[in-house]
């Protein structure tokens, strides 16, 4: 028997469903996200260098130098890295985004927080102000579009933005940053600190817009979900990332439903997704797709960050002890550690810096994680469809009609997928297409960082500790995460071993060559 979901889960909130869909946050998240994407794309295309021929010739020349170096047995990895780095720089210069300097977040710092606002080009403060003005203008338009009051929003937004800036400043301290304690955690803590001490002032309330920030940020994220990178590591990569990951997600969710009987399906889904796919970004995407409660997202993010910090340090030691080698070790790390940055850091710990093995381990780990990152679009879409067709039922328990499914469907997911398709197409248009995508996403990822940070500050401002601790009763979320991760570790290692030693042993050997 399937555990009974609570009424709040099964009964769809009809409030707002009868309103015009054109005035919904979902649709306005698409308008706002796409307005930004198209503006940046147009600016980048219009600023296209008149003559790229010298750059293309330089790339060809660098290719020749790399080939020559490959034939030289005494060539060092550092020599390869320098040429590859140079080629990446020249490739990036094929497209220029003139608006890039107007958006920034804070820089990392060690002992003086003011270092966070300094950079060689001096654009940090301009960029932070640019981000403030851009998000303020976008969401003022968004609130007007959804029929809400805009009055009071600018003042409230200034307050929430400053809290988000403070959270980013905390996250960019080097020790915090290098232990992968991401801004989502600090944004949440900053919000909680206000709401659980002096209380969230009423004047801040108009800018506490968790879902709106998240949905718009996810539409922007679509531009970074480039599906043509799916085959970056060939068939082994697809098996490790796109077979093991969904299997672990589904089995963990079923374990949570039927064995642990977690009362909230959405909490179960968000934890299963963030543990199996790619941590915080997967948690944000699935939470929005299954309309999870804010506290559930907070809990899932907290669990993921805590385990990521531990796994990032422990896994390299285990891999060294098992003598798995750079390909198997890197792939295992990429398939199991939640956060992308932590995957790269753990991969870098496997071998001595500057060796061929170290480069291979980092390359394999990051590529497996990148392929998992791309899965985020498919997971968000599948969860949204599953939720509106199977989980949300009417009060009478009947299956909803197709029209009803469409009305309930979180439409921002379509904006997210459309952005993914458009930018994947642009990237497939050769070197210049790839550079155009990089130039545009250099700005969208900054804006997305601000939006997600604002969302987590908003969650903190709306939550109190008692509500949060209610979800931890019985420790079931923790048990779910630990059991799911254990399954993930076992299945990933089995698949990695099968792919790189039995089915495609040549692929593993080739990755060891420069």
């Amino acid at each position, binding site marked *: 028997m399937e555990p009974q979901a609570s009424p709040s889960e099964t009964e769809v909130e009809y409030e707002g469903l009868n309103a015009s869909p054109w005035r919904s946050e979902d649709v306005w998240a698409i308008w706002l996200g796409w307005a930004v994407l198209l503006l940046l794309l147009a600016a980048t295309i219009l600023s296209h260098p008149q003559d790229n021929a010298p750059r293309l010739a330089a790339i060809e020349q660098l290719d020749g130098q790399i080939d020559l170096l490959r034939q030289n047995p005494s060539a060092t990895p550092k020599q390869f890295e320098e040429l590859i780095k140079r080629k990446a720089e020249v490739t990036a210069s094929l497209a220029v985004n003139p608006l890039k300097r107007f958006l920034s977040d804070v820089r990392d710092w060690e002992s003086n927080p003011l270092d966070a606002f300094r950079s060689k080009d001096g654009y940090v403060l301009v960029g932070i102000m640019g981000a403030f003005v851009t998000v303020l203008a976008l969401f003022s338009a968004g609130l007007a579009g959804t029929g809400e009051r805009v009055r009071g929003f600018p003042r409230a937004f200034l307050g929430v933005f400053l809290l988000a800036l403070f959270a980013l400043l905390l996250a960019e301290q080097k*020790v915090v940053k290098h232990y992968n304690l991401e801004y989502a955690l600090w944004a949440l803590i900053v919000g909680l600190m206000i709401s659980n001490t002096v209380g969230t002032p009423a004047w801040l309330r108009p800018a506490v817009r968790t879902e709106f920030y998240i949905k718009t940020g996810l539409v922007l994220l679509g531009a970074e979900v480039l599906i043509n990178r799916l085959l970056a590591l060939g068939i082994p990569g697809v098996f490790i990332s796109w077979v093991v990951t969904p299997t672990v997600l589904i089995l963990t969710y079923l374990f949570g439903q039927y064995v642990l009987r977690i009362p909230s399906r959405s909490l179960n889904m968000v934890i299963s997704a963030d543990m199996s796919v790619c941590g915080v970004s997967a948690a944000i995407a699935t939470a929005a797709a299954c309309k999870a409660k804010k506290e559930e997202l907070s809990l899932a993010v907290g669990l993921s960050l805590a385990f990521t910090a531990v796994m990032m340090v422990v896994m390299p030691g285990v891999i060294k002890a098992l003598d798995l080698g750079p390909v198997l070790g890197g792939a295992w790390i990429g398939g199991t550690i939640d956060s992308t940055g932590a995957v790269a850091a753990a991969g870098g710990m496997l071998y001595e810096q500057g060796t061929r093995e170290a480069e291979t381990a980092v390359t394999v780990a990051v590529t497996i994680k990148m392929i998992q990152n791309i899965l985020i679009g498919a997971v968000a879409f599948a969860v949204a469809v599953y939720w509106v067709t199977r989980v949300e039922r009417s009060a009478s328990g009947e299956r909803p009609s197709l029209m009803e499914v469409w009305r309930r469907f979180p439409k921002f997911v379509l904006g997210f997928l459309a952005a993914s398709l458009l930018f994947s197409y642009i990237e497939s248009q050769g070197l210049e297409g790839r550079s155009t995508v990089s130039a545009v996403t250099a700005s969208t990822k900054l804006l997305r960082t601000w939006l997600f940070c604002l969302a987590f500050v908003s969650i903190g*401002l709306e939550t109190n500790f008692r509500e949060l601790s209610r979800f931890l009763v019985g420790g079931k979320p923790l048990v779910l995460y630990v059991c799911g991760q254990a399954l993930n570790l076992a299945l990933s290692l089995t698949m990695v071993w099968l792919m790189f030693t039995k089915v495609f042993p040549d692929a593993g050997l080739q990755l060891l060559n420069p």
Partner: protein
Amino acid sequence: MPAYNCSTHSEPGRLAPGARLLACVAVMAATWLWALPQLAETPSVRQMIDRNEELGIDPSAKFYSELPLMPRVMERLGRHSERSEE
């Protein structure tokens, strides 16, 4: 201005809301301005930070596109796939 939700009222034996916020800020300031900079100077942490910076690794990246080393990784992968086709 009224405050929203949460336990903002004073209870006997507890600090006043404003004092609690100040206490939190003081703990944060001590941690970020004194403890963490000290920790950054310990050999193992210093080594980890230096290694990540040298390799172009941002451990706080949430998505592959946020990693500074990604263009180099893609370049390496491009060469591998070219070689596989040969």
